[in-house]
């Protein structure tokens, strides 16, 4: 008779590990399954870890966790082919406790986080792929794995297996993605001397900076790029909706090469040695693409539940919070010995009441909107660059004349009206 | 331990197919240089049954004297029997340096002897030198998967021992008529003292392409793309009458058997011509072929490291270049019929 657990969590990313951690802390007998050689070995993220949601689980984690750099400056670059308009905020309050957020490398961070869960009693099993949920009488009672004698049983199974959750699909919670519901991100980790990083990004020792790239970083395709500073590496990546890649017939690594050689980016990454090349999907369908998140004996958390805020490139924090809320629900269900769908539906409630649900709802139309109206990326960013260039180029033209020229260049009144309308629309989906 | 008692450079002479194994002759070549530098004698140690005559070969390749243990008990290599003889010989005649081929026999024997003496033993050496004044052996070898070279010393014990990879040292040209002293030795060893018995020896029946003996080797790597692509390597090899070599990745992919693998964990080869086709030139591969006479590399990546280690390089697609080469060689060597005949 195979051993039975209280809970099985599939996937040791931020969502699954957060869930296992909380369960183990409450004395629940929990098994955490991971297909990689170790947690994080296959995981991809540009690398901004938000402090608050992690603190909710492990207070003061940054004193011990393998974080790269606390972020003191966030820049936003609106790029054209040979120019960029940049906004930035830098604040010294972010350079000290309690900090705002950090860059991390997932291969290190996930491993550390999982180890913390193990120390509390989680049984972590790596190099094992969960194949599907074992369903008896309409109730999930365990998972089958690719190992000999590999079936595992539990009162409840938590699906934290990431964006392409095969397990949620096999339960029918999920459909196959439409190409406009997922982004494909590719990134490179580039090795560069600590000191050089600090000089190039204008940082003091140990501090970090993030740069978000819009516009020509993705050749106008809906998506963003990023350049983050780690201890002695840089993370450079681009992510675009799959539909955009298909439409523009461009390969993701070509886009990455393009950004790397972009005149606005090249000076930052010059001489850095590629260390790792990674690619991953990001669920960007938002609220409307969320699957069913609770069933009989089963919960879905993190990317598997499509919990990503694409506009603010947040994911790991939503993942952790959802994992934590799932754990709370399971602990309550365990007390009553009731793992039915009705009992577990408390998780969906908690989720929707938390910032996760709130944000998912708030931006429910955002990605879709920008996908439907490509002019934001294709036209307005270049326009902004031309305007800035014109205003700032000192060539003897009076400033009033320059403003007029810029105004004229935008086009006839109809065009101006369209822009005004788009700005209003964008404000509406983002508000 | 008085170091002054230990004099001379010794080589364990391994018997193979009724003669002295090539690696032992190579070691006599290397040992000769060490002995000359130390102004001392070069000796061989021969253990076996009916092998005394082989001492003559050792003299012709540079040995000054050979200690011989000739007894039926040594008919087959057995660790315990050979080790007893070697230990006795070392204790009696006290060499400063003792070298073994890094073959399965040489490594087995050396490990056992080192533990009993005890003394230090450096494995798989690829470079040897000696400090003229102190006699300190500088034994260098690749370490950590060939990523670095390390020089290893044994300062506190004598003799200093090393096993040496076949095919990296050079045997001296044979000098017919050169002679030396045979010193017959024996120890009281009975069959009952030896706890192992060789029941049977099975030689590989199919005569394989011995890549370590071939004059020309055509080697293929992952760049051939598939087992079908790798077929080009076989065809070119047939055309040239060459043996087929391969990188480890190809062997691991199962395109060809392990005995074709060239490199650190495969065979070291020194053919007159070595073709490296679709092979990137990882250090572990290079150490196995870099002493070849003429190295020709074909690779579509101009930055492939193999081009740093070749004599002639072609940047191009193997699928395009190799068929042209096959055709060129076929017409130049007039082998077309033969190859076709071979295929039928």
């Amino acid at each position, binding site marked *: 008779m195979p051993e039975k657990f209280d809970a099985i969590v599939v996937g040791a990313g931020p969502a699954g590990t957060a869930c296992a951690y909380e369960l183990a802390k409450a004395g629940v007998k929990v098994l955490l399954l991971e297909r990689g050689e170790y947690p994080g070995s296959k995981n991809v993220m540009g690398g901004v870890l938000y402090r608050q949601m992690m603190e909710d689980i492990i207070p003061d984690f940054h004193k011990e966790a393998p974080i790269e750099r606390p972020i003191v400056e966030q820049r936003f670059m609106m790029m054209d082919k040979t120019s960029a308009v940049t906004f930035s905020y830098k604040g010294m309050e972010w350079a000290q406790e309690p900090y705002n957020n950090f860059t991390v490398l997932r291969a290190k961070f996930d491993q550390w986080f999982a180890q913390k869960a193990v120390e509390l009693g989680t049984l972590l099993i790596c190099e094992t792929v969960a194949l599907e949920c074992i369903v008896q009488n309409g109730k999930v009672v365990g998972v089958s794995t690719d190992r000999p004698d590999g079936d595992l049983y539990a009162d409840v199974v938590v699906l934290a297996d990431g964006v392409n959750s095969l397990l949620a699909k096999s339960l029918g919670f999920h459909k196959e993605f439409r190409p406009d519901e997922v982004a494909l991100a590719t990134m490179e980790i580039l090795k560069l001397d600590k000191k050089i990083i600090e000089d190039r990004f204008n940082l003091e020792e140990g501090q970090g900076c993030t740069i978000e790239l819009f516009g020509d970083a993705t050749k106008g395709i809906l998506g963003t790029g990023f350049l983050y500073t780690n201890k002695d590496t840089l993370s450079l990546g681009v992510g675009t909706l799959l539909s955009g890649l298909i439409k523009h017939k461009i390969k993701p690594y070509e886009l990455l090469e393009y950004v790397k050689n972009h005149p606005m980016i090249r000076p930052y990454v010059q001489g850095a040695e590629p260390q790792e090349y990674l690619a991953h999907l990001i669920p960007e369908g938002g609220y409307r693409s969320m699957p069913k998140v609770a069933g009989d004996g089963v919960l879905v958390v993190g990317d598997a539940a499509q919990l990503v805020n694409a506009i603010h490139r947040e994911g790991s924090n939503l993942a952790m919070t959802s994992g934590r809320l799932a754990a709370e629900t399971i602990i309550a269900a365990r007390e009553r010995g009731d793992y039915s769908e009705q009992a577990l539906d408390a998780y969906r409630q908690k989720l929707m009441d938390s910032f996760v649900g709130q944000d998912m709802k708030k931006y429910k139309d955002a990605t879709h909107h920008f996908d439907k109206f490509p002019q934001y990326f294709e036209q307005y960013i270049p326009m902004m660059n031309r305007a800035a260039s014109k205003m700032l180029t000192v060539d003897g033209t009076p400033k009033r004349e320059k403003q007029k020229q810029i105004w004229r260049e935008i086009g006839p009144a109809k065009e101006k009206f369209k822009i005004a309308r788009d700005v209003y629309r964008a404000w509406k989906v983002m508000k | 331990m008085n170091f002054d008692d230990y004099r001379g450079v010794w080589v364990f002479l391994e018997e193979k197919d009724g003669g002295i194994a090539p690696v032992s002759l190579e070691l006599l070549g290397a040992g000769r240089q060490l002995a000359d530098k130390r102004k001392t004698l070069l000796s061989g140690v021969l253990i076996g049954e009916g092998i005394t005559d082989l001492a003559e070969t050792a003299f012709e390749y540079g040995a000054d004297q050979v200690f011989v243990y000739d007894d039926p008990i040594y008919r087959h290599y057995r660790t315990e029997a050979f080790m007893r003889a070697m230990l006795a010989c070392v204790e009696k005649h006290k060499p400063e340096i003792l070298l073994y081929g890094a073959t399965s026999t040489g490594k087995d024997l050396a490990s056992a002897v080192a533990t009993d003496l005890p*003394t*230090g033993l450096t*494995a798989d050496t690829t470079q040897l030198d000696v400090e003229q004044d102190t006699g300190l052996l500088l034994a260098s070898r690749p370490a950590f998967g060939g990523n*670095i070279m390390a020089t290893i010393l044994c300062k506190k014990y004598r003799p200093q021992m090393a096993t040496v990879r076949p095919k990296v040292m050079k045997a001296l040209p044979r000098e017919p008529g050169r002679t030396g002293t045979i010193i017959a030795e024996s120890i009281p060893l009975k069959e009952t003292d030896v*706890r192992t*018995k060789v029941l049977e020896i099975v030689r590989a029946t199919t005569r394989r392409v011995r890549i370590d003996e071939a004059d020309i080797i055509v080697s293929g790597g992952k760049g051939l793309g598939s087992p079908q692509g790798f077929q080009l390597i076989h065809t070119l090899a047939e055309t040239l*009458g060459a043996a087929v070599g391969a990188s480890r990745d190809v062997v691991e992919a199962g395109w060809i058997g392990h005995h074709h693998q060239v490199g650190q964990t495969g065979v070291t080869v020194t053919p007159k011509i070595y073709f490296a086709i679709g092979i990137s030139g990882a250090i572990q591969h*290079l150490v196995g072929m870099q002493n070849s006479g003429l190295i020709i590399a074909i690779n579509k990546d101009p930055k492939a490291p193999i081009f740093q280690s070749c004599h002639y390089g072609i940047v191009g697609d193997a699928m395009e270049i190799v068929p042209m080469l096959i055709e060129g060689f076929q017409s130049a060597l007039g082998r077309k019929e033969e190859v076709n005949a071979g295929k039928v």
Partner: protein
Amino acid sequence: MLHIVACIKQVPDTKIIKMNPKTNTMDRSSAPAILNPYDSHAVEEAVRLRARYGGVVSVLTMGPPPAVKAIKKCIEIGADDGYMITDRAFAGADTLATSYALTKAIEKIAAIRPIDLIICGKMTIDGDTGQVGPGIARRLDIPPLTSVKKVAEVNKEEGYVIVHRKLEDGYEVIRSTLPCLFSVEKEINEVPYSSMPNVLRAARYQPHIWSVNDLPDIDRTQLGLKGSPTIVSSVWAPAKPQGGTMLEGPPPQQVQQLLDVVLQRKELFESRGGAS
């Protein structure tokens, strides 16, 4: 009932190791630590012999504390028990000092349960010598059998084993008294994907951990760096070759140039028959 001890080591995965080109040192953090691949075959063979003859499989390692992971891997393969000796005093050991420390641990394990057979891997991918196995055998005064590629028979009652030892051009069938020590080739078996029950057991398993003080009658002068006759005096990057002549021009022209070069050595082709 056999008691088989497999000696195993955790090693950096030299396949992925990165070098610091400036200092010529290894970036150890870049190489994940794995169970020495050859040793997994040693453990697997022990597990197979247990299935054939019954008994207990123990594994033994000397290494730093994280090497517990390598022991767990062996439990996944199917070992029953794991022993680890770990102590600063062992650090810097060469093969002679390693075989001494391991022998002392084996003696202690044997006092708990007498040992019939010791199995080692052919070699480690970091030490890369294959000397430790025979070293242990000599110290225990049992026969070392290296290059074992098949175990034909183990007969505890009559006290012998019959194995096939790989030779350069074939193999020999050899009979030895028991107890003895094998160093096994990779081809001796294939290590299957471990079963879930073994993996669960491994995840929970805690090995026996001993320090120097736990080993009786140990001579500290024979341990670690102090007890090692060989020392690494210098380390350098293998010489970078300079590169050869790159042939230029369109492909047919390159091929023609190459043919000219090679055919200058026509004697090579004439000295041999057809395809070999």
